[in-house]
């Protein structure tokens, strides 16, 4: 009887050890990490526009100005490659989300929980990061191909990361290109 019991215990110990080991093993690299997604072609066309400008300097200056218009800070510029990287920290407070979490806390407190701090999990701020690449067109002179890509990281009240994602909303990109178009016009006519 004792023998059988210790066998069970031993198995339980081994199972626990295996579980712990599995937990600290290196997390696998996703197999599709660098595979092109099917949606990437559509996303590229959303993120890309062609503009006509007199010179590379003119369109780059207009691009920097439009980033300033949209309240971004420039992090990095590599002029010969037309790469502009910019970012800004903005508010991500959502009263709707906070109301939901507030009621969740109340329910949790009513239920007798003593760790009811869902509110601290609410979105607080977000860092929006942007790369704009402006290159002279290979096909046509005086034309420039501009591609914008956007990502954001949302932080909660205690600076923990709630979300990181690429921004894919076509309207956002359209608005940026509309602004850029105006900026190029102003740059040429100042």
């Amino acid at each position, binding site marked *: 009887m004792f023998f059988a019991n210790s066998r069970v215990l031993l198995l339980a110990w081994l199972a626990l050890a295996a579980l*712990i080991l599995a937990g600290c093993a290196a997390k696998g690299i996703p197999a599709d*990490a660098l*595979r092109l997604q099917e949606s990437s072609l559509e996303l590229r066309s959303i993120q890309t526009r062609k503009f006509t400008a007199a010179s590379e300097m003119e369109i780059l200056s207009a691009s920097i100005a439009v980033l300033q218009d949209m309240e971004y800070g420039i992090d990095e510029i590599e002029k010969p490659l037309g790469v502009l*990287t910019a970012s800004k920290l903005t508010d991500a407070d959502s009263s709707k989300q906070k109301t939901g979490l507030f009621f969740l806390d109340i329910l949790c407190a009513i239920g007798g929980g003593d760790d009811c701090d869902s509110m601290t999990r609410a979105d607080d701020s977000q860092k929006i990061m942007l790369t704009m690449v402006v290159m002279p067109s*290979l096909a046509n002179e005086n034309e420039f191909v501009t591609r914008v890509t956007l990502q954001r990281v949302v932080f909660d009240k205690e600076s923990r990361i709630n979300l*990181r994602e690429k921004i894919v909303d076509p309207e956002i990109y359209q608005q940026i290109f509309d602004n850029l178009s105006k900026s190029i016009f102003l740059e040429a006519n100042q």
Partner: protein
Amino acid sequence: MTIKFSPLVSMLVLLLGGCAAVAPDVVGSGTQLEIRQIQTREYDTLDKKLTMRSVIATLQDLGFLIDNADLDLGTITATRLHQYKMRMTVTVRKKGQTRIAVRVNARIGETSVTNPLTYQDFFVVLDKAMFLTLHKVD
């Protein structure tokens, strides 16, 4: 009873200890030459700028933001934050008199990408971008 199971307990403590006290990974792992081979591809061109343009287009297609780029040194560093954090550094260098070598490093979170297939996936996309830029398609 307590004595009987103490070896098991100590083994568990040892396992846990081995898991927690990881030596600082300062110099990376794997053999230098093998890693270089997996991460490098050569192209029959001498146009560094167009090659870098293709690399940037490839990175953008794959959803990366460019953190840093330098034409003189031929380096590009990019980050993708969708779902998990992936960071890449690409170097573009002249190789001999007629070719250009593109080398790619990737890490996801705290782990280095060592699977040759993942790098192959990247070069498949880059091959297409190179073809298009060298044939003057935007």
